[in-house]
């Protein structure tokens, strides 16, 4: 049985007055129970996407559905099934944490008694009980964010939107939000998470969409993206005599004499590409004394997608191809630099 589709976005565009095209034909689907990372730089179109999905902004063209409800024509139904913590925790500085939650619960249609109970429950589960009756002006960044997410949970949403939930937080606050998303993931919630932090998308998301200039540059699980678009660095130590042999075998234009005997070979793709490289080296008759591998990171993927405009879709073609052999311990560069 395939999971239900939680979010379905088809050819979404948004043009703001003045001709700024924030979204330029975005399509993706998010399955129910999935934590979907939406990764991009500032201005890539992340918040515009979230604002359209949460019915706060109308798309210029294209459609978007949340649990089957169209965001443009059926906004009321959409708002009943999701919760959202938008960029910058939207709090009233002069209201306490408890008052925020009680007011949100009341506005969501609960009775006074139910609202009081729901607020107490959320304060407890978000670790805000001690600060419940202090006004928000005195909250730390992490507490503000937790209260904001707690407000988003007032309706027990089936889909949760978190727009850059850790931007501006200290490491402790960030860890708290990560734990929170982890808990949501474990309880089967659907979470749409935007972030500009690669590590965050890698750690939390089942699948990641890399968004760049209003388009989706790539979609897949972090591992898939790394395998397809990342680069693995193979460091080897060989006798000086074998250096030329290796250069001939793997990439004709590389390798200068390395003082300490280490060479770096950059391989397109994930760790799966490594055995083939080793095979090539030994096939060339090189004697490899030592070998270490640096696995690709989502950052490599991001740089290769957004920094050098690599086309993502077909993938595979370059898999396992050695793109550079370099000396020393430099940071591997993307192809074409």
């Amino acid at each position, binding site marked *: 049985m395939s999971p239900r589709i939680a979010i379905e976005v088809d050819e979404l565009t948004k043009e703001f007055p003045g001709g700024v095209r924030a979204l330029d034909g975005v399509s993706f689907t998010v399955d129910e129970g999935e934590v979907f990372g939406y990764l991009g730089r500032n201005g890539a179109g992340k918040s515009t996407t979230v604002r359209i999905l949460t019915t706060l902004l109308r798309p210029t063209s294209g459609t978007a559905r949340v649990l089957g409800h169209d965001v443009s024509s059926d906004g009321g139904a959409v708002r009943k099934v999701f919760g959202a913590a*938008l*960029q910058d925790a939207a709090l009233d500085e002069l209201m306490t944490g408890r008052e925020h939650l009680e007011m949100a619960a009341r506005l969501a249609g609960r009775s006074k008694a139910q609202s009081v109970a729901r607020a107490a429950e959320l304060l407890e589960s978000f670790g805000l009980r001690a600060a419940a009756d202090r006004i928000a002006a005195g909250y730390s960044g992490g507490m503000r964010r937790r209260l904001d997410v707690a407000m988003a949970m007032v309706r027990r949403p089936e889909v949760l939107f978190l727009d850059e939930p850790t931007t501006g937080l200290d490491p402790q606050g960030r860890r708290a939000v990560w734990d929170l998303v982890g808990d949501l993931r474990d309880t089967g919630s659907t979470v749409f998470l935007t972030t500009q932090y690669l590590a965050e998308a890698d750690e939390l998301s089942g699948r990641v969409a890399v968004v760049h200039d209003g388009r989706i540059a790539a979609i897949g699980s972090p591992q898939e993206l790394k395998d397809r678009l990342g680069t693995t660095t193979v460091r080897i130590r060989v006798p000086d005599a074998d250096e030329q042999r290796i250069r001939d075998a793997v990439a004709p234009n590389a390798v200068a004499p390395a003082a300490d005997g280490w060479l770096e070979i950059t391989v397109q793709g994930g760790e799966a590409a490594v055995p083939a490289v080793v095979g090539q080296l030994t096939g060339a008759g090189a004697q490899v004394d030592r070998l270490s591998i640096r696995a690709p990171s989502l950052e490599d993927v991001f740089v290769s997608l957004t920094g050098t405009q690599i086309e993502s879709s077909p993938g595979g073609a370059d898999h396992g191809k050695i793109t550079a052999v370099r000396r020393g311990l430099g940071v591997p560069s993307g192809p074409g630099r």
Partner: protein
Amino acid sequence: MSPFAQLRLLLFRSLREGGRNPVLAYALPIIIPLAVLVLVAKTLYRVTDLPGFPTSNYAEWMTPAIIMLTAMTGVGYAATSLVVDIQSGFLDRLRLLDVRPPALLMSRVLFDVVRVVPAGAVLLVVGLLLGTRLNEGVLGVVLLFGLLVLWAAAYGGLYFVVALTTGNAQAPLALAPLFLPLQFLSTQFVPRSLLPGWVQAVAAWNPFTYMVDAARAMTTGPMTFAPVAKAVGVALAMLVVTQTASLRAYKRASGGL
């Protein structure tokens, strides 16, 4: 939740918030009118010796006008808060909870209106202590406070227009001194007959003149139909104009209703 229940909840929020910022929210509307009333009554009281001055107690002459003045020194706070609500994303949060944006605007407008009532009451009590007589009784006082809240909503609309058009939470501050010329170019300090000719002409176009005249009719009397009807008409017209403009500015500032 019905729009009315939403409005009540949001108004309650504003009132509670005002309670946490009492000096700005509740005391400030009182301070300037109180100072004007007491200082003027104690320093310029010989004005009443001028031939043709209708009362012998200057405090009695000033009190009704000063009560209407509280509407003009008290507004602004709510318009600032509304801009903060929009900029902080709080309005978006309310929208996600299916609150219709006009409910937030209206809660802030009503907050301004509610805040002038205690201010007006304090000034009335001080006026009575200074010898003002309420010749038109309870009915006059009830009508006086009715006109006060109507005037507060009408005049306060200016602040909302400026705050929402500029999107600057501090902009209403710039409007604050407006009550000064409006005061002097009206019948607040002396009757129309004692104003220079050009001021009389300007005063006829100053809405505040009509509030002052009606407030006097409702307190020291005699209460006749004409000044009351004119004041209500002027205030209602101003209310419609300023609140229509503020609703439009709000629509733009908040990204649609």
